């Protein structure tokens, strides 16, 4: 009921994610079991039928992402959840969703290691895959929650971005964030903004894929009376295949312009004591929580340290990092991979700056003690 207060519950990150999705209006989940994401599917299997939504367990992850694209094309907000091996299988139709401009949300609860890897280990190895996993130039948005609360909040935000910009949005928590149990505030209905896609009442000359002044196209839902054509082929504003070079160019450039035109909307980060920092700790997700502690410890000892955590990792908040990087001379990038975000940071701050990684790939977290020790070594 609108206006009433929300409630605070002790929730697992994965449960908070599923609850956030339902809050955001998600009424379709198609998925395939995979550790460490299965609690999301199980929550949806119990809850969606009670709110008139659809839960279906598909035959594999390829079918899972296909089914949610189908649902969203028909106008029903949809989501899937998986882990690395399943996310690899989804790359094909992640590309399809980008070119059909179909809003969907994909949750990739990151495990550790390539291939089957370490299913119950935690990791951050899919950062680059989430950006470049599907072929060719494409827009994509990825969010990295660090707490159970953010599993709720950023899932709602993921749906809002997907609907507003008509892009697939990836939620990229580590296994630890999926499984952590923390107090989560569930807002009352109407307390948190929920965005639904724009549904024009008419289209000029049936140009369903014509971009508005914000670079967003609003093709109609299937069955809404417009009879649109959707294709994964390069298409012009009508939605039909084109091989005319100018139109093919407009297709790829237009699709990708959505990221640039909404850069401010797609910038979301947390930071502490960055303005005068000599040393910046930069990380994402759960690893960044430890960075905040290390930063405060360093400050207590007189080291001018700061920390910076993108909550939207793609597009990367380059402008903000570039600004706070002017003063700092050392950048420490702790990650549960061999240095994927470190490469981005180095590119943004420039080759003359000192950028050092702290990396762990054994399936465990970077503990505070270990991070403190390694930071000491970097600063020695």
């Amino acid at each position, binding site marked *: 009921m609108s206006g009433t207060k929300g409630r605070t519950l002790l929730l697992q990150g994965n449960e908070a994610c599923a609850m956030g999705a339902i809050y955001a209006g998600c*009424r*379709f989940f*198609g998925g395939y079991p995979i550790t460490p994401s299965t609690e999301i599917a199980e929550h949806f299997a119990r809850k969606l*039928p*009670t709110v*008139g939504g*659809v839960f*279906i367990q*598909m*035959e*594999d992850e*390829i*079918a*899972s992402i*296909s*089914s*949610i*694209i*189908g*649902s*969203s*094309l*028909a*106008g*029903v907000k*949809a989501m899937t959840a998986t882990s690395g091996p399943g996310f690899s299988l989804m790359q*094909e*139709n992640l590309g*399809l969703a980008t070119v*059909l401009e179909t809003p969907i949300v994909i949750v990739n609860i990151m495990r550790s290691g390539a291939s089957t890897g370490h299913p119950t280990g935690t990791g951050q190895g899919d950062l680059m895959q989430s950006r470049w996993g599907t072929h060719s130039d494409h827009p994509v948005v990825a969010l990295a929650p660090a707490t159970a609360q953010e599993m709720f909040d950023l899932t709602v935000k993921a749906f809002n971005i997907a609907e507003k910009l008509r892009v697939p949005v990836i939620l990229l928590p580590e296994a630890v964030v999926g499984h952590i149990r923390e107090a989560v505030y569930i807002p009352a209905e109407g307390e948190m903004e929920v965005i639904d896609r724009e549904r024009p009442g008419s289209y000029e000359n049936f140009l369903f894929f014509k971009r508005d002044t914000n670079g967003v196209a609003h093709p109609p839902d*299937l*069955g809404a*009376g*417009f*009879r*649109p*054509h*959707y*294709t*994964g*082929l390069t298409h012009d504003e009508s939605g*039909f*295949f084109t091989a005319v070079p100018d139109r093919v160019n407009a297709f790829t450039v237009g699709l990708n312009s959505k990221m640039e035109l909404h850069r401010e909307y797609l910038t979301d980060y947390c930071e502490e004591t960055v303005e005068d920092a000599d040393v910046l700790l930069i990380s994402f997700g759960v690893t960044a929580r430890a960075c905040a502690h290390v930063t405060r410890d360093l400050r207590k000892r007189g080291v001018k340290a700061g920390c910076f955590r993108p909550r939207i990792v793609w597009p990367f908040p380059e402008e903000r990092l570039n600004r706070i990087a002017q003063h700092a001379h050392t950048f420490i990038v702790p990650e549960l991979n061999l240095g994927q975000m470190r490469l981005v940071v180095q590119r943004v701050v420039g080759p003359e700056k000192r950028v050092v990684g702290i990396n762990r790939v054994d399936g465990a977290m970077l503990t505070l003690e270990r991070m403190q020790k390694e930071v000491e070594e970097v600063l020695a």
Partner: protein
Amino acid sequence: MPTEPFVKKYLRQRVLPTIWCGGCGLGTVMRVIVEALDDLKIDQNNLVVVSGIGCSSRMAGYLDANTVHTTHGRALPVATGIKLAHPELEVVVIMGDGDGTAIGGNHLIHASRRNINLNVFLLNNGNYGMTSGQVSPMTPHEWHASTCPFGNLEHAFHLCDMVKSAGATYIARTTTFHYMQAVRLAKEVLEHKGFAFLEIYFQCPTYFGRFNEMTDAPAMLQWLKKNAVRYDPEKPRELEKGQFYVGKLWEDNTKDEYTDLYCKLCGRAQEMMQVAD
């Protein structure tokens, strides 16, 4: 008042002509589907056509409906999502043989198993036409294709038997030679409630025919005519090598359809919630 011919009503004339080769059977198949849609007065605004990738799948672009040309092999899971999200939509799925039985084979058996109300047309020309005639899972044993120039070592699926054992509840086969039968069966597919599957053999003289000593469409249609055997469940007969049944092969109306079952499940879940409250 003369009415508009049905082919004009159901086709997007602004995107014609088709990309299909001269002599290709897909034009005939498209006319079969359109005639069936028109006979049953299917509302185009409520009609969704989903296809995969390949020559056959280009048909989605030519049909004046809500159309989705997806990725290779993925028409069925996309269609499953559409149908479940809005069961009132009439969903037609168009796939080729490589699309539906190789890369999309897993989706075919699982969609059959669910008995979801999809109208599936699997258009079988025995090879990959779009990429110029490679061997497919439906190329007959010892026949030729560009990637089996010395003969096909593999065996084709018994496709209709396969979807039957997977759980489809309406199964039929026809060819582009059997136009009237094809229209009748296509209408039965559209009217059936559950997973309905029609395999249509069609000629690809440009590749499949050329590799197998049938260089034009008439030769291929003669081949389809010669080897087709009308299926009569009362009088089953041994098929000779190369022969195949045409007609309705299977219908089971005892099995509940998936979206109906899901709707009932929602009702049960909501009742349980009310009791719990």
